């Protein structure tokens, strides 16, 4: 079930209502059941995969804590990580690896007889796998006591607001919250609702509107004579609004129930450098890689370590996003740019020119992210040389929408507030803003075909 659907509009109030109505001791059962239902709404059978990894990690956590000696703990951790990564590799990367083996075989003269899998990728696999891995790692490190109650651990992995597209939570942040009794709080409820509303606006009004234009252009990339600059710009905004919109809905829905999730975006397009961009974009993933890959590899101990580890992190991040070489290249470019900034001493620059350049560079790298293959990406870059900008007039409405949205975001960012609504002091103005946002969401929701969240595919 996706957040921008009528099904969720029915699901969410019912789950929330019963969450507060039920006695505290039954709440985790209700929330877990709702999360199971939410996940099974996509494809029921994949609950088995999730179930198996939950069982493995639950017992791994308990035994890691009980184990004597670092060697035994390490072994148990390794078993848990291998199980999680194994599932991820099998479902997400098997066909990709298979295709590469075939290509290699063609080059070296051997035949690859492995069949290709024709199964759908379980929704949110990368997200909940990483979240599960962070649990066993933190237990191993001694930062998190093992969860003794199976139900609570299952809820940690399956908690529906962040189950399929993050934020990738840490057990220290979330597990204890499930054990706490949360009373209904009006301010928290209204705050959560506002965050959800803004998230829906970003997703439905901005992202889905732009998606139609971007998809059209990419579909016709070889036959169009129009410059691709606008499409590239639109996709940058689309992916941001799509993903951050989803996260906002997750954070808002969770906040209403009294559970605070971590912030995943901090106005990334106002970054001045690539380095800063990655402190603001998909924060839960970048901190995950920092804490569980970059630092264990040695961090920036020496210049060599820094370069090597940054490259590894960004390559792995690229491949995490998708089973395609375009994602690897996307990650690699970001890694190289981060290294270049550090070596040139501009990684902490705050100049406007750097900010604009960073936005342009990030937008250009998104081409690799969006394109199905390198041919399409190459064509998109080639289309930047075209002289016709006929779509600018044709999409003037969407351009205005994007500029208005960026203006609101920038204003909110500069004032240090979470949402634009908190900057509207007069009640009449605030209510008018709510109504306009609701009206815009309903209007666009029925106009555009509901686009799936981009990050769902990960």
């Amino acid at each position: 079930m996706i957040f921008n659907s009528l099904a969720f509009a029915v699901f969410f109030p019912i789950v929330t209502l019963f969450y507060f109505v039920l006695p505290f001791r039954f709440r985790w059962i209700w929330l877990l059941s709702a999360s199971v239902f939410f996940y099974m709404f996509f494809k029921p059978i994949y609950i088995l995969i999730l179930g198996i990894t939950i069982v493995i990690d639950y017992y791994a956590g308990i035994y890691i804590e009980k184990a004597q000696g670092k060697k035994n703990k390490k072994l148990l951790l390794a078993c848990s990580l291998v199980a999680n990564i194994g599932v991820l590799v099998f479902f997400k990367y098997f066909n990709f690896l298979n295709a590469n083996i075939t290509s290699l075989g063609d080059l070296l003269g051997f035949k690859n007889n492995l069949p290709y899998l024709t199964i759908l990728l379980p929704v949110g696999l990368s997200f909940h796998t990483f979240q599960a891995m962070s649990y066993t790692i933190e237990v191993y490190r001694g930062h998190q006591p093992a969860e003794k109650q199976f139900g609570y651990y299952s809820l940690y992995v399956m908690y529906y607001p962040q189950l399929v597209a993050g934020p990738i939570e840490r057990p220290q942040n979330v597990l204890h919250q499930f054990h706490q009794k949360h009373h209904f709080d009006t301010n928290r409820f209204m705050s959560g609702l506002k965050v959800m509303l803004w998230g829906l606006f970003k997703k439905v009004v901005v992202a889905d509107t732009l998606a139609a234009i971007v998809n059209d252009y990419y579909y016709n990339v070889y036959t169009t004579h129009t410059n691709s600059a606008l499409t590239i710009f639109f996709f940058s905004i689309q992916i941001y609004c799509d993903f951050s919109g989803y996260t906002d809905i997750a954070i808002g829905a969770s906040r209403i129930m009294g559970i605070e999730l971590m912030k995943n975006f901090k106005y990334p397009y106002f970054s001045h450098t690539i380095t800063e961009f990655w402190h603001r974009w998909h924060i839960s993933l970048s901190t995950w890689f920092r804490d569980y890959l970059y630092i264990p590899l040695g961090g920036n101990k020496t210049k060599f370590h820094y370069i090597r580890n940054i490259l590894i992190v960004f390559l792995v991040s690229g491949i995490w996003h998708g089973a395609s070489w375009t994602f690897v290249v996307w990650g690699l470019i970001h890694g190289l740019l981060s290294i270049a900034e550090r070596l040139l001493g501009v990684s902490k620059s705050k100049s406007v020119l750097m900010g604009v350049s960073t936005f342009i560079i990030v937008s250009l790298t998104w081409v690799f992210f969006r394109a199905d293959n390198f041919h399409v990406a190459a064509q998109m870059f080639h289309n930047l040389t075209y002289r016709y900008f006929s779509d600018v007039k044709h999409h003037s409405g969407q351009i205005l929408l994007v500029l208005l949205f960026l203006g609101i975001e920038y204003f909110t960012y500069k004032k240090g507030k979470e949402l634009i609504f908190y900057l509207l002091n007069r009640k009449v103005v605030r209510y008018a803003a709510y109504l306009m946002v609701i009206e815009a969401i309903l209007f666009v929701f029925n106009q555009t075909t509901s686009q799936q969240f981009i990050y769902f595919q990960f």
Partner: protein
Amino acid sequence: MKRVAKNLLLIGAIYFTYKVALFGIIFYINNSSYQYFDDFKMEENYGNDMSSTQVIVLGCSNSRYNFDYKLLNQKPNVCSVHSVSTKATYGLYITLKKFINSKWNQKENIVIVDLPYSLYSRDQFVLPTKETLVHLSADDYWKVAKSFPRTFFSYTSQISLFNPIISDYFKGAIKNAVSGKGSDATYADLSLKVNSNPSFKPDYINSSAPYNSKMHFIRDVDTNTGYLEDIKSYIANNIKCKVYFSLPAINKDNNSLSNSTINTISSVLKPINNFKNTQFSNEYVYDQWYHLNKRGAEINTQNLLKALSGLRISQLPNFETVVQNEN
């Protein structure tokens, strides 16, 4: 909790009032003489009305372009075949409503609903266009709500100040009001086009260049099959003629409809033709992915004749003879 409920109710009430006010203004304008509308001329009558059985191909511009009415009317004593259509932007509901109120809606007649492209495009059944704004009365609106609940919410959400059609509509009404120009024509006069002859468009006749496919693409996700039962039921309750459905001719390179969607549409509507026969390659397409050029129309007409003869319609006992003779 009380404060939350109060705030939510307040927002809901304000939103509801705004929508009611917006609709109220539109219905008021519709009932006044300040309607904003397009002039829509009647075209030449093609079939002769002397035969007792009138066969009406009901649709939009697709029914005007996609059939050769000369061929269909070769045997006037058997039946008279007319195209009766509205503009596609009227949407299917207005098209059906106009037909129901027209002289063609008689028991003796046969209607072939050659569903316009709105069949395959989401929410085209009741379109939030200026035509539906003008032609949809308050009574219609409630009928849509009762008969087609699935599209009711969609239409309501489209009547919004964010919709540029609404601002155009209001601008037109204000202009008419200021200039004192009232509309002499009621909506019944702005009605059906009968047997328009596309021969005045040379490209249509002489079109041999491949059709340059536009970006529009009919996809499964755009197709809303939910209201098909509602359409059938609405037609059964309001149209006196014997009604058959026909899937419209479309450019085969512009759609990616799945078998499952096609099967759903076919199983509910039971069209007289099959989907394969409606797929035309670029060389038979005119200026839209649902308009055929003359050559395409000839093939489509032959397909219709075969489909009709296959039905063995009792009111058309000699129809089979027509087809056989033509073949």
